[in-house]
């Protein structure tokens, strides 16, 4: 009985680790393909598009303090509708017609991993 209980506990405890890893892998591949061109392969805001001509700096997602200020919903909205929805530059493209909801969720998760933060709640 106790052994069964322990196994069950182990599964419950490890579950999030497994699903978390699967989601992160997906988010990372999506980020590398769609976002790294501006936000950089490591998310530091230094992709190849950011030349002297680029009018604004794409967000550096490793800046924990800045990323703490925005909620998951804020991130989701900017990804879907682009910079202008949050009074930011139109140089941040709208991806709502490109990505599925699941892909957007994976990206939100990946950005949270990059900033190592949870952000504003609500």
């Amino acid at each position, binding site marked *: 009985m106790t052994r069964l209980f322990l196994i069950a506990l182990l599964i419950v405890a490890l579950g999030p680790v497994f699903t978390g890893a699967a989601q992160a892998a997906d988010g990372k*591949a*999506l980020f*590398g*393909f*769609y976002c*790294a*061109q*501006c936000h950089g*392969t490591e998310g530091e805001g230094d*992709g*190849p*598009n*950011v*030349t002297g*001509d*680029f009018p604004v700096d794409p967000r550096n997602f490793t800046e924990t303090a800045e990323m703490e200020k925005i909620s998951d919903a804020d991130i989701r909205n900017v990804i879907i509708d*682009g910079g202008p929805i949050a009074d930011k530059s*139109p*140089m*941040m*493209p*709208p*991806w*709502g*017609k*490109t990505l599925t909801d699941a892909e957007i969720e994976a990206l939100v998760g990946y950005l949270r991993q990059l900033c190592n933060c949870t952000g504003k709640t609500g």
Partner: protein
Amino acid sequence: MKTGVSVFPALVLLVMTSSLAQADAAAGQAAFESNGCQSCHYTQGPATEKTIADQLAKKGPELWYAGSKFQRPWLEAWLADPQPIRSMKFNSVMEPNPGGHAVLSADQVGPVADYLMSLRSDMVVDGAVKVKKKNLKGKLIFIKKMPCSGCHQFPTKKKFSGGLSGPSLIGAGERLNPDWILAYLREPKVFKPVKMMPVFVGVLSDKDMKNVAAHVATFK
């Protein structure tokens, strides 16, 4: 009766010239294959890429709609002397384009151009985009309202400007068929089901797409 007589030779001539072009396209296809071009370019539509991995596995851009995409004089000149189009290496985010694309011998350029120009897509509507010297609405979309300039090089008064991840659009007016540019924006699933460029269907209206296509077609 008279008209019947004069129409007849014209008809023969038409049939002859079109079969001649076909013969050249066949010779061009043979040259395309013997040069190993199809090892990096697929020439049979429709698009098969479904995932990011499919897109990244490609070694070169697909050419199955080349005849709808390119302008013939540009294509011939480029096949004889290919210069980098993309700033970055194909399918790479960080590595610059090393250049050094395969070159055809002078006698193969014409037939291969015939062959590639015969590969057409019926999703491209001839004459849909009216190109004028300027399209200010399209320009505003390209440099201000939408992030096009963030990923594409384009000509400016100074020289040129813009991002590097997309193909350079400098010279797009000579390279690309304006009607194809519109079709590319309208039908992302047909031409590029998986790409680093955002889908603008439902973001830009059809009118906006026509304007921005017409603006890109002015790029020298």
